[in-house]
């Protein structure tokens, strides 16, 4: 059983006015029951013991209904019972900062975005958000766990409009307020005001920028685009429930079938990818997952070889592993936990960004994801970014608008020949990972440094 409460606040200003300022509270409880190997789940936002008992009865009834259809039955890997409490660390409680001060910061930054756009930016926005989730977990196996997770962040965006043209530029990384498990100190560290004019300027410049060239090029992806690249082409295909087909009805399955485990060449030897729920301040950081399994670090891809999945107690057993690696997460009180990414990170290499650019003869450098699409086995993808710059003979050249690239996942990662070093490595939050029916939106993290991929098809449909 989980009891979950969330408080949230979002503030968005646009073109000199408040677009939306919202405070929210959401609480309730959910019970997941396993009867004769079949699952039932019921939840309610109505408080009181009477309702808890009614919901428990409903969950058991649903589990009995599930058993009416024959087939696979769940066996759970063991987990040690634990009693614990954990809170994600932060320095400055975002809910203690005065709303008026937040608004002043956002309005000031947003004005500078417009100033930077020189009349070409039709929509300038600044937003900030905070969320605190308190959850209590109890199981019939004897665990009682409390966790409190605080997230915070802010961002800017500029939309420049020209004849038949719309270009977007954002800071720090796309349309998202929440960027990590921090307090208000994360917003202060962003220096929104100091970055605002550049955001407006670059949105306006993109209107006049040339199209991204078409054809095979070497590409260097900034950490902001690596977030999406890792998320879609490694994070999702290594979810073991997806491999077993339980996401087939919605977002699809995975090319990383179990026969490939331990031997499939996922990428070049530069590619080591981990699922790490223990890294500080990640949006996929927690001490226990929603089955009461400790958060941990698991190597998914080791020097290019596919080594492991993110798992649950049920799927770990099915795979023949002794224990879950702790990736079961639910989006609130009213959702059943499913396998979710934690922080899926590309381990750093030993290149600086300057060295990488100098070493590139004919390429494109790309920043911040703008569009994404990938097939139902996570093989064929096409991703677009907000902005790019040509690389010619070892130097950054002209800005290009709407750059995009396409590839087949293992071929693409096989072309990875340079990964940035620790100094260039950065952990980003992704607060909008959709999966499951009913839809669940997870907050996950992705860390990487700028990374180069050889001979990638760019400028599709230009």
């Amino acid at each position: 059983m989980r009891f979950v409460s969330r408080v949230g606040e979002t503030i968005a200003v646009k073109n000199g006015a408040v677009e939306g300022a919202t405070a929210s509270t959401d609480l309730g409880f959910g019970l997941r029951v396993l009867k004769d190997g079949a699952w039932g789940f019921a939840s309610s936002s109505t408080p009181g013991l009477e309702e808890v008992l009614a919901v428990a009865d409903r969950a058991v009834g649903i589990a009995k209904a599930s058993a009416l259809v024959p087939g696979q039955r769940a066996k759970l890997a063991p987990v040690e019972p634990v009693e614990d409490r954990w809170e994600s660390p932060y320095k400055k409680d975002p809910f203690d900062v005065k709303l008026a001060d937040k608004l002043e910061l956002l309005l000031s930054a947003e004005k500078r975005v417009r100033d930077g756009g020189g009349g070409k930016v039709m929509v300038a926005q600044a937003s900030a958000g905070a969320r605190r989730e308190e959850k209590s977990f109890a199981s019939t196996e004897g665990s009682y766990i409390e966790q409190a997770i605080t997230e915070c962040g802010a961002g800017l965006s500029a939309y420049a409009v020209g004849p038949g043209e719309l270009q977007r530029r954002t800071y720090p990384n796309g349309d998202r307020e929440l960027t990590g498990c921090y307090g208000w100190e994360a917003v202060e560290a962003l220096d929104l005001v100091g970055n605002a004019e550049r955001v407006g300027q670059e949105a306006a410049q993109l209107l006049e920028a040339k199209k991204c060239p078409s054809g095979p090029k070497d590409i260097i992806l900034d950490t902001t685009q690596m977030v999406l690249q890792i998320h879609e082409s490694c994070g999702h295909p290594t979810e073991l429930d997806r491999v077993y087909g339980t996401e087939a009805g919605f977002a699809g399955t995975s090319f990383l079938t179990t026969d490939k485990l331990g031997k499939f060449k996922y990428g070049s030897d530069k590619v080591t990818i981990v699922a790490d729920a223990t890294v500080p301040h990640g949006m996929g950081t927690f001490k226990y997952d929603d089955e009461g399994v400790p958060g941990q670090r698991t190597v998914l891809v080791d020097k290019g070889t596919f080594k492991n999945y993110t798992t649950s107690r049920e799927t770990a057993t099915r795979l023949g592993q002794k224990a879950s690696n702790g990736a079961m997460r639910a989006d609130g009180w009213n959702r059943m936990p499913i396998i979710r990414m934690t922080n899926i990170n590309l381990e750093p290499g030993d290149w600086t960004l300057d060295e990488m650019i100098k070493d590139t003869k004919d390429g494109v450098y790309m920043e911040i994801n703008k569009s994404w699409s990938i097939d139902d086995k996570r093989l064929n993808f096409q991703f677009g970014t907000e902005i790019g710059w040509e690389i010619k003979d070892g130097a950054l050249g002209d800005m290009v608008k709407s750059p995009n690239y396409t590839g087949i996942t293992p071929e693409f990662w096989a072309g990875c020949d340079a990964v940035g070093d620790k100094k260039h490595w950065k952990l980003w939050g992704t607060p909008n990972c959709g999966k499951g029916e009913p839809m669940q939106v997870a907050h996950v993290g992705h860390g990487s440094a700028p990374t180069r991929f050889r001979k990638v098809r760019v400028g599709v449909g230009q």
Partner: protein
Amino acid sequence: MTAKERIQEVLEKCLRFASADQTEVVVTGQDTYLTRYATNYIHQNTAETDTQVSVRSVFGKKIGLAQTNALDDASLKRTIEHAERIAKVQPDLLDFLSLPSKDDAGEITAQAVFSDRTAASTAEERARAVGRITALSVKNGFDAAGAFSTAVVRFGIANSLGIRRYTEATRANLSAIVMGPTGSGFAEGLQSDVGKMAVDRVAETAVGKCRDAQNPVAVEPGDYEVILEPAAVADMIQFLAYMGLGALALQEGRSFMSGRIGQKVTGENFTLWDDGTDPAGMAIPFDFEGVRRQKVMLIEKGVAKSVVYDSYTAGREPGKKSTGHALPPAAQIGALPLNLFMKPGDAEVEDLIKATKRGILVTRFHYTNPLHPVLTTITGMTRDGTFLVENGKVKSPIKNMRFTNGILDAFDAIEAIGKRPALVDMFGLGVCSAPAVKLKKFSFTGGTEH
């Protein structure tokens, strides 16, 4: 106390507790059930009961919003205080005029679609329906996956200018993806009355498609004639709506409609409208501000006619009134059409195939996403049944293809339109009624291994 009485009590309490110049309260209650199956067994089975309250407080031209799902008096009072405190510290939203009044909201005669059978449906009934699909799948040696959901949703809206609304609606969705060793098939159903769900038709269609989809061959990317079945057409229409059929996108110059009202934007045989009162869709007769939903012609015979408005966006244009398309209060994207209808034609899908010299038949799209909202360029993959058509006949299944194409370009290239529209879920919020179409040209830009 009935659910209706409980929601009405919350609405009136909130208005009593409020001290703002204007206050709006929106209460949505829902009982939702979803049975999820894969590899021919039920792996998730859920129930949820929730009631959410949103309060918009207005002082002059300042607006604050707060939400809660705790319905005790103390929580409601705290939520209203939050909304009012948020409003008071803001600068004026200069182009905000007012929340809609009772007169603005209009008289309502249409009914929401509601079915007692859906409201009373049980987990056992859903499981037995799923069992019919999985049994047919097993019999054919395939794996079936999908979901069967039912929901009762209750909407209560009240504001301090006299609006009082309440309605209840039901919805049932069934999807089936049936997978064989080398290909898959798909079918779905969407009804207000779960008793009308054609479970066996969904099962037989998905299994049949899967059978036909085995052993696909690769074809080269390029421009092809294409036949799009209703799910693929509805996918394009929902992105058209998201990118440009709301007033805010038009006003901000982000819409393909910006500066083009009255101009030709597609072929003459394409007509699209929104009608939230048509019982052929999922009718709910008022929007989230309580304003009567109006039928709005969006594109008529290829000519851009109008976009949809809520009270705020209507107030930004002289003489405009809300068309009854406000989204829930926390949405910051303006009004959107949620009950879309594309005008059907007179052809059967078989006619569209017969008229194709060399083309591709698409069951549905997967993971579609916009590339360029003004040009309406999107990209995505085909999924669950893609076929090569030659000389008027389906020649063979083919491996999935990536497409990159403008939506307006596609609807400018319609050669023929199917006569049997299907109702397709749209972003989980609305619906789209779309027929199959045959296009002269559609660009496929890549392939994949399956």
